[in-house]
């Protein structure tokens, strides 16, 4: 990675970690002061994170969309962005940072250890569909991660209604936010799959080939489809829905980070 990018990425990691500690302190000591400064630290981390993406973009000449490090860099940016947007729309969701920020730091860390070599954009990525595909992939991923956080908080709050956890948002609100986020993620993932299919047709002459990435993107989409149907058709809500939101993320995590360990990602030519 470039020198400036390195400084900014590590600054973002430091600020996100500091922000997490402040949020945690805010919940433990019931001090609004910590929550306020936690949010400010999160915004500062986000600014550094944005700077690191711009720096890498300037260095490589393309958006960071290739390989584990770039996906982690860009993906976590979307996760934090989703949190910030939600925090603005629903101020009660401020404590979501306790679940979202550690995940972002972990994903970024995983990306850095995978290698951050500066590389030009490879020929298969030179397609306008790339931007649609990647943008909506990260919208979906960040929504699912935030829904997962809402699910975790729901279960924590449902277990202990007094003390530290009583400062978490209301159960009903957590449940509904989670459902809304899942619906948005489901919509975004549908666009991701559709644009990927069109891109694949121009690149490999077929729109669907059942390679591991395609199969797992369908699996994770179906998992959330099942999730939505269980809520709507069978009336699942509350704890069961929270477990669904948590469990469904497995497919997405596997799709984004686990597939590389079991097989070639897409077909091996171009």
């Amino acid at each position, binding site marked *: 990675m470039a020198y400036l990018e390195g400084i900014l990425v590590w600054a973002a990691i430091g600020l996100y970690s500091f922000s997490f500690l402040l949020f945690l302190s805010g919940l433990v000591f019931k001090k609004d002061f910590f929550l306020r400064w936690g949010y400010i630290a999160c915004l500062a981390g986000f600014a550094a994170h944005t700077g690191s993406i711009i720096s890498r973009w300037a260095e490589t000449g393309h958006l960071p969309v290739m390989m584990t490090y770039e996906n982690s860099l860009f993906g976590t940016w979307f996760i934090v962005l989703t949190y910030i947007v939600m925090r603005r729309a629903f101020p009660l969701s401020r404590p979501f940072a306790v679940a979202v920020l550690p995940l972002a730091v972990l994903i970024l860390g995983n990306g850095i250890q995978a290698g951050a070599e500066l590389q030009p954009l*490879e*020929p298969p990525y030179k397609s306008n569909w790339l931007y649609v595909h990647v943008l909506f992939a990260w919208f979906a991923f960040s929504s699912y991660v935030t829904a997962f956080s809402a699910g975790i908080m729901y279960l924590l709050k449902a277990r202990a209604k007094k003390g530290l956890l009583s400062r978490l948002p209301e159960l009903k609100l957590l449940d509904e936010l989670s459902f809304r986020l899942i619906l948005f993620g489901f919509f975004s993932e549908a666009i991701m799959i559709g644009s990927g299919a069109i891109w694949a047709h121009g*690149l*490999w002459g077929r729109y669907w080939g059942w*390679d591991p990435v395609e199969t797992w993107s369908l699996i994770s989409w179906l998992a959330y489809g099942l999730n939505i149907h269980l809520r709507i058709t*069978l009336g699942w809500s509350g704890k069961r829905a929270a477990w669904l939101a948590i469990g469904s993320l497995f497919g997405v995590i596997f799709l984004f980070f686990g597939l590389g360990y079991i097989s070639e990602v897409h077909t091996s*030519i*171009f």
Partner: protein
Amino acid sequence: MKKLWRLFNSRKFAVYLLFVFFSILVLSSFLPSKLTMPVEKWIELKKERPVIFWLSERFSTPYVVKGAAFIGVSFFLFLSTFACTLSRLLARVKTRRLEFEKELSFSFSVEGESPEAIGDFKARALDALRAKKWDFSVSEDAGAVTVEAEKGRDSGFWGSVVFHAGLLVCFLAAPVTALTVLRGDFILTEGVTSRLREVFVSETGKASSLPDADITVGGLKRVYAKGIYDVDFRGKMRIEGRTFNREFPFSVNNPIDLMGYQITLQEFGYSAGVVMEKQGEKVFDYFLNLRHPVAGDYFDLQREGDEGLKLYALFFPDFFREGNKLGTRSKEPRNPVLVVRLFKGGEEISKGLLKLGEEAMIGDYRVKFNELRNWAGFIVVKESGVPVLALGMLIGLPGLLVRFLSNERRLEIGLKPGPSGTKFAYKGYSRYYPAFLEGEVRGMAEGLKEGGDWRT
């Protein structure tokens, strides 16, 4: 028949089918597949782990999806989705009722008292509903006023119906593709003209259905950054038929469209021109399309008197030698060198190292590396599933967006004269977002109660 209709019409049954479909995909995806493995590794798997290979050949995703069980489940899922969507549509047309009126929906109520007269309170309550674009109707009975208001009544339902209709069309793309597809590939060496129908290796469909044309690729260009990172591969293809003669540019992601046949660049490699002579007689003069830059390639040299003769070629585009170590510094042909080894009956008989333009005696043969070109591999496809899939997405995605944005909710506001003004009761119903609606209506009621600003 009625029982069958009832079964397919059950949304629970659809959920179970979806679960089966999902489970098959999850289980099959953990098995290795030929699709994402180099041929050598696939053969290695067959030798070293025969049980896994046996399972993979039958149950890995690309195979299992072609099996009767998966096709059957998919077909039932299609029928079930179709039946559920149709029956929702019919019920809606027939009863004109909101689904959440007859299904389990969440409700809550907010009650209070305002010092205002009932007429004034009602006027402000209706203004507030109007400002937030609620549809409402008012009825009065013996001094009591009832307001029934709805919002997002249709969007959720129609969004869902349109999305499922789009999904059904997407489902149809699979059989349309299977029934109409022609697919195969071919490889061309730069500057060598071939007949399309002859070089085409079919996977599905007949080569005879392709246009009768001669094809030549030229101007093949490769671009690397720092000599090692792939940046661009492109070229031009001349296609000459009886009635046409055109040159098409192509590159990765930029296929050629020839009368509905999509010709897509898939592979790119170096092609070494090699001439072999034995006792003054030319025995071999071909371009070797080198496909394995690291492992090298073997070529059978079938010739009378020299049965079982094989040539192994390993190409270094930017050759270097450090002691016993041979290698390439980059992928660019700055110092092209070809390593040639000759085998007979599996035994190596001789080997040599040739720079471009050089010749050397390797065993009994005079071998010359006389030219370096590129070769390109293409996939040819024609099918009708793509427009069906695109149509399905065009229908389904807007439906899904509307479904996502929808929020069906209903309010019943009861007003009656109280001892010091107006008693009011807001009762709200929301199918999915009762907490959001509660916040919205509580704010509305509080605002009215205090005679304050309209806020939610």
